[in-house]
């Protein structure tokens, strides 16, 4: 779950390589590249997954509930469940836990994106700022979540949602690195061209540096979201009275594997939907770029 910083750096560098080669010739009828066609391959992938799941369930037996049992569980307990109340969970089935964790992730990522982009862009603009923040990010960004989580619970558990702060913290680190690299990877020719056209440094930042960095920043947002579902759930496992992690802990205590799998599946679906939304937003905002459907 811990996003490795070196891997992030490598990925942004790769993105820069792609950007440098740039679009050569694009068809004039490119139309609306942010609209996606439905591919038959993902459907095939889903079917293969369900097939393997049945196979595993048949081989393992009791401790690997088959797909239809999990789907039935989801349908039965999604918005209301007496059974959950019996376990001491709040009324309302899976929904309140899913909403709680989703809110943690969305708010945490939003906070982290804002803060991380701010520090990243400031670092790109002023060397001194980078020199100050770089060791901080390098040190705290590499602390594993399982080590960091107890501290966050102790520090913030009483005053706010420790899970929220944790997600915001890791997102800040990711976005700091991504936005800094995004600006550094921008071809300096663009800034020079803008200067020879008489643009002020403020205008250059707003109309050249920022839009030029947006595609890579979106890459960071995607990575941050992907990591945050796990971060939030793990943080809830370690200490929370609500959310997906807490629910999993409760089901575990009564060996209810079907419910654990159900809630993980439901959270995964929400994560997938969120990723799709971000992908669409990115494709629309960076519709000027050729690889918009990436």
């Amino acid at each position, binding site marked *: 779950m811990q996003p490795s910083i070196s891997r992030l750096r490598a990925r942004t560098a790769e993105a820069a390589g792609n950007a440098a080669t*740039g*679009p*050569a*010739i*694009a*068809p*004039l009828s*490119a139309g609306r590249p942010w609209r996606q066609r439905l591919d038959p391959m993902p459907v095939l992938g889903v079917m293969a997954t369900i097939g393997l799941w049945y196979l595993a369930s048949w081989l393992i037996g009791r401790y690997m509930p088959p797909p239809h049992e999990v789907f039935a569980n989801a349908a039965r307990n999604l918005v209301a469940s007496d059974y959950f109340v019996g376990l001491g969970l709040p009324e309302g089935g899976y929904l309140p836990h899913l909403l709680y964790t989703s809110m943690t992730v969305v708010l945490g990522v939003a906070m982290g994106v804002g803060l991380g982009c701010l520090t990243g862009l400031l670092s790109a603009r002023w060397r001194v700022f980078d020199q100050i923040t770089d060791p901080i990010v390098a040190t705290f960004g590499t602390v594993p979540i399982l080590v960091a989580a107890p501290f966050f619970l102790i520090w913030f558990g009483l005053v706010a949602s420790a899970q929220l702060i944790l997600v915001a913290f890791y997102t800040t680190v990711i976005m700091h690195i991504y936005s800094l690299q995004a600006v550094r990877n921008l*071809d300096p*020719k*663009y800034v*020079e*061209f*803008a*200067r*020879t*056209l*008489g*643009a*002020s440094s403020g*205008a250059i930042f707003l*109309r*050249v540096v920022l*839009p*030029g960095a*947006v595609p890579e920043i979106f890459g960071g947002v995607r990575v941050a979201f992907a990591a945050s579902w796990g971060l939030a759930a793990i943080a809830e496992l370690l200490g929370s009275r609500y959310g997906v992690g807490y629910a999993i802990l409760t089901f575990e205590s009564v060996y209810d594997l079907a419910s654990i799998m159900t809630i993980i599946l439901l959270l995964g679906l929400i994560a997938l939907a969120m990723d799709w939304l971000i992908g669409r937003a990115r494709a629309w905002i*960076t*519709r*000027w*770029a*050729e690889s918009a459907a990436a």
Partner: protein
Amino acid sequence: MSGHGKGIVVRDAWCVFEHVSGRKVEALREVTLEIPVGQFVCIVGRSGHGKSTFLRALGGLNPLTRGEVFVDGVPVAGPSAERGMVFQDETVFPWMRVRANVEFGLRAQGMSAAERARIALDWLRRVELSEFVEAWPRELSGGMRRRVALATVFAGGAPILLMDEPFGALDYVTRLSLHRLLLDLWRNTGRTIVFVTHDIEEALILADRILIIMAGRVVDDLPVALPRPRDEEVRARPEAVGMIKTIMHHLGLDALAAEGFERAPELAARR
């Protein structure tokens, strides 16, 4: 002191870089020259011999180690909207539509939206891109993107335009049509143009005057008195051929021409 008067005046310009190895590289050495208003100057020379450094120095993008550049008597201290620049690679912002690109410089000058649009549309018409006003740059061909860049710098109103091999990466036919376009724009606006190229033919088609830069020095300064348009017939005249020979000589290519590539070092090494 010189440096007064109109046009560009370069006085004893030196530009020394520290190479990564610690070796000092003199990219420009004691360059002194004047470029009057409205002249079309081409700079030729081998790659890595200081052409781009000189152009960037004129643009105020490279600080000089010694010496000065004056424009209309005022020393150049940095980039300004008075000196537009077209770079070798794409100088089109891919995240702006074609019209927004052309309007970029005008917007920086604080012009009203209506005025900006009027000027941008006018320049896009002059570079024959009226149908692509709302297109994204990626939807255009390489040659069309150069037209956008030309429209942008001409619309910006800079009296001096500095171009660093702007058509270098284009195919022959596209390049010829852009030459014609650029000459039209130049004739109709009277801007001063300094144009770096590695292509002798291109220099002969475009220039009033050809400067040859080798090892950081201006080693020759050739006025081109050939009549325009400089079609193949004009370029085949004895005085044009003589000029090509002179340039080849300065570039160290005369031996290659005379002895049938025998002494071309790259080829000799390969044998």
